């Protein structure tokens, strides 16, 4: 078993454990910390896939900025333990089997489609890791219009958040 496989198994188990902990935790703060665990293990997986820039912004933006925002709101609203209520019967008897079926179907079709692709990637045609330089050249030439549009999106989001959170006097 190669080192890459070992790292993948470690990070994959960490991500799944974090996701389960997110669901099982009663306190929102514990869920937030579990989600940070998932994001950090995903960042290591991105490094394993050779996407260094994506791993960096995963840590900076997701695990840094967005999760700090979440923890800040939890603190501000003084969110305590979750109130336990009865899950609706529709969710329990229809939603859960459908979710399991959906997962099994997705896993089966992905495995059938890509399960035997490992031979193609180990030979001379093995993909090279994408460098940050290539990524930025593509981003600022081919995708420059969407890139500029995201700045407008962020501006509108900031204005929307300000208007929503404003206290009516």
């Amino acid at each position: 078993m190669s080192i890459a496989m070992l790292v993948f198994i470690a990070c994959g188990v960490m991500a799944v454990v974090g996701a389960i902990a997110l669901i099982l935790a009663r306190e929102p703060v514990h869920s937030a910390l579990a989600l940070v665990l998932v994001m950090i293990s995903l960042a290591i997986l991105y490094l394993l896939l050779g996407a260094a820039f994506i791993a960096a912004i995963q840590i900076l933006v997701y695990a840094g900025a967005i999760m700090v925002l979440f923890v800040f709101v939890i603190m501000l609203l003084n969110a305590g333990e979750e109130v336990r209520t009865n899950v609706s019967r529709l969710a329990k008897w229809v939603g859960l089997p459908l979710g399991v079926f959906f997962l099994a179907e997705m896993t089966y079709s992905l495995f059938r489609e890509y399960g035997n692709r490992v031979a193609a990637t180990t030979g001379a045609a093995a993909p090279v890791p994408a460098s940050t330089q290539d990524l930025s050249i593509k981003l600022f030439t081919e995708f420059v219009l969407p890139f500029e549009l995201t700045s407008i999106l962020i501006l509108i989001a900031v204005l929307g958040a300000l208007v929503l959170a404003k206290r009516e006097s």
Partner: protein
Amino acid sequence: MVPISYYLILSAVLFGLGVVGFVFKRNIITIFMAIELMLNAVNLAFVAFSREFNQLDGLIFVFFVIVVAAAEAAVGLAIVMVIARNRKSLNVEDVNLMKF
């Protein structure tokens, strides 16, 4: 080298757990976190496909997904704060004005 199918299955499992959290959690902030978990799972699939097919477009898409997730978190958490201020509760079952 790890086969791409392993990444895709991990991504599917994380997405499924995100859906389960979205349906079964009752705290509105935790539901939001489940949505973020689903977005992360999709990002993992994008990066894995991008590596497999040697195409940079997948990484660009992940970049935009992260930007949109940041904007969504800002607006969504502002909405959560308004709901918490008006209803004095973070339970989604108290927000049932448009419930059928």
